């Protein structure tokens, strides 16, 4: 997938001095310090021959990890948690949940 369409993990630089901490309780928006991939026991695999690009899976993914990628759907496996909602909701059974191998 073209990486510019999805949010990216960034390295967190540990503050060395109290002055390096943000003032007040805020932090930079959209700052992702780690991925969620390790949560997953099953991963969604899309059969693009069956997919009719109805975007049902894209709308119902609680994590927003399904992207439109040149008129194909593409899953960000760094952040997908493997909940299976996309596969269950797909009207064409175009997504299967495949066990992750260690």
């Amino acid at each position: 997938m073209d990486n510019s369409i999805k949010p990216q993990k960034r390295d967190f630089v540990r503050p060395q001095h109290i002055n390096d901490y943000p003032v007040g309780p805020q932090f930079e928006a959209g700052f992702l310090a780690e991925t969620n991939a390790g949560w997953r026991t099953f991963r969604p695999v899309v059969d693009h021959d069956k997919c009719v690009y109805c975007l049902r899976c894209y709308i119902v993914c609680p994590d927003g990890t399904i992207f439109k990628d040149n008129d194909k759907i593409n899953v960000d496996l760094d952040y997908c948690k493997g909940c299976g909602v996309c596969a269950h909701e797909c009207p064409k059974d175009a997504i299967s949940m495949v066990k992750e191998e260690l």
Partner: protein
Amino acid sequence: MSNTEPLAIKRVTPKNITDKELFYGHKACAGCGGSLAVRLALKVLGERTFSAFPAGCMAAVGFIYPQMAFKNNSIITTFPGVASMAAGIAAGAKALGLEDYKTVAFAGDGGTADIGFQALSGMIDRNDDVMYICYDNEAYMNTGIQKSGLTPYGTKTTTTPAGTNLPGSVTHKKNLFEIIAAHDIAYAATASIGYPQDFINKVNKAKHIKGTTFIHVYASCPTGWGTPTHTAVEIAKEAVDCGLFYLAEYEDGEFKLNKNPKEFASADEYLKKQGRFRHLTDEDIKLVTDQRDKKWERMRKQWL
């Protein structure tokens, strides 16, 4: 081009909704309905949105220092104070002369119908320019599944255990939507993540209304409900189809039922597939469906 006609609100669809994900990388459980509600609403509202979250699951999963899962400007508030905080943000934005932005509060059922209610009621009374979205997972989930004012009859929670003496919660779900409407608010609606396009439409409608608006969205919680993660959207749809939740709007002083099924799907099936209701006896279920039928009779008589 004539400027006299009000511009029709452009429909937001899966095709034209922004590609940007504004709630991303959060730590909600897999299949969390509340996080789907927040994600979709923020996509409709866009990046120029201030969002406020009281204590509750969405605050807990979105802001884990240094991670900040929101791409728009977002803040955690006190548990009872999300409406006050949001009203303050709206006042601040107005004082700064900002344009083209929205302020939204997202709170759970506990944060809305119980502890946050006073601040919410005051905000509606002042008609502050805030959209308030209550994601209803029918218990205090973030602290480990305690009963709230929106927990329905017969729900097993850690404070309403089910056993030989009690069937779980013995109180019925507060009528939140009508309580809010009774403030004579400009716009209020109920929705469900099981009907995502309807929810998107309602958020989009409220986005274009100045003043306080309110959306009560039914949002499943696999962890607290004892349901498989993959059925998170389906179960929220079934709640509507069996009549235990309903899709409605209140606008210009009028109630409107958006969905009036000729026949309800089986409430028994909906209840029995959830761990929180599995203990219910036929008698308990009859009590639940009788209550449902009475409510629908009244809604149909008064709102149709």
